């Protein structure tokens, strides 16, 4: 089972997206564990994560987070801002699972 962690400044709007992604996963029968956390708690959850998605408002930390976590085998990406805005759970989930 893939474990996806979403990060934004306070973990508020991302948690909304998590709900939508979970619904999309359930609909197509994909087993995933998705959670939203504030950026400050990233260290705590790093060991329990396969895919790390950054909300566009913290996208500027991408390079730093990539160098920190990619060596551990975690895939890192920023969520497309319009998909984020439209809370398009299906598209974001698909993007996450297709990450290489």
């Amino acid at each position, binding site marked *: 089972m893939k474990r996806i962690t979403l990060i934004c400044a306070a973990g508020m709007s991302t948690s909304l997206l998590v709900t939508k992604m979970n619904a999309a996963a359930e609909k197509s029968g994909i087993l995933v564990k998705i959670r939203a956390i504030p950026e400050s708690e990233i260290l705590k959850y790093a060991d329990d994560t396969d895919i790390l998605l950054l909300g566009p408002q913290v996208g500027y*930390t991408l390079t*730093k987070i990539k160098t920190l976590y990619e060596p551990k085998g975690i895939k890192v990406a920023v969520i497309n*801002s319009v998909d984020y805005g*439209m809370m398009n759970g299906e598209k974001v989930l698909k993007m996450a699972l297709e990450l290489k």
Partner: protein
Amino acid sequence: MKMISSKTLEKIQAGMGVFANNKYIKSVSNAMILIMTPIIVGSIFTLLTNLPIKAWTDFISKTGLVDLIKIPVSFTSNITALLAAFLIAYSLAERFNKDGLMSGVLGLICFLIVTPTGQVKINDKMISYIPFDWIGPKGLFVAILIGLLTARIYVFFIEKGFIIKMPEGVPPNVARSFNTLIPGFVTVILALFIAIIFKFSPYGSLNQAVFTCIQTPLQGLTGSYISLLIINLAIGILWFFGIHGTVIVFNGIMGPLLLSMDMQNQAAYQAGQALPNIVGMEFFRAYVFMSGTGLTIGLALLMAFFAKSKQYKILGRLVIPTSIFNINEPITFGTPIVLNPVMLIPYLAAPILSSTIAYAVTAIGLVPRINGVQLPWPLPIGISGVLLGSWKIAVLQFFMVFVSLAVYYIPFRYMDRKAYELEKAGSSYATSDSCDVSAR
């Protein structure tokens, strides 16, 4: 309409993010977030003692209940500096991947060492006490300084290995307290040294010196109308580049300053005196961040009820419920407002216009000043206005919704027409690559 390449954007964002990601600033803001919980609890008790219901206030003052209700206020809002000293020292050590607990304890102790205590004689016995004066909002700046300094020294000693090493076989908890002995002595001695130096200074204490020379002048600057404009502009421009401007601007120094101004108002409110400040953290919550940064509630309403394009109709309906609870990232990224020149002007103008109106009507006394009570930030407008002191504040908040509608009307029409034409041409979500800043 790609305006800025994603590489350039990342550079801009990284540059702006440096400030927010600074370890010291992050520790302060992290501590402020943690302090909000006790302060909100205390604020609710402040409200209880000041409910505008005469039967209730008569009842609690006659029965003496009022003094009991004030106890939680004393040990939440009135000990903010004490909490901050611990939490800041804790957070900073954690950011250096060191054990935060001992660092926090040392931060608290050092803060108390520099803080002047008092002595009274009761029944021929001398009793020492810690006055609330300096462990509340007035001492916040010293708490920040001492908390950061203590934690930094603590981390330095652990990193350099200047610790007493226990032989193997000693239980880890015992070893831990020995490990922190040297940094413990050093920080406490240093704090004592600072306390002694300032005792013989004209100010009498570090707290008084910092309050007179730093905190008061800074608050004077922060509370002015000009600074209101600058804060609004800075937040708006940061968000325009897709960065969480609110967090960045209120991180570090701005947050504690605005918070102490609210606390001053709250203390005056509780004592039934005139409120000293127009601006404070809650001023922003009440008039500027309602429905989220940029006062986008008008835009959300326009989208939900007047959009021709399917894209904006869906977005509007998605955003109205979250906007009620002051969350508006969907509209910021979904419209998009980020990097969209059409939206830049209304996005900056709406909060500036709103703060200007609010500042003006408060200054002339048409609407009362905000009582400084700290509310949970997702509280909807109207309710928050009443709790912040008056139904008049609530009415003014609803008036701002019309301001927002007016400001966003023309740009909305333009964006909607464009989206509608694209949809008619057959491609839905046609704008999704117009601002593809994140797919790299």
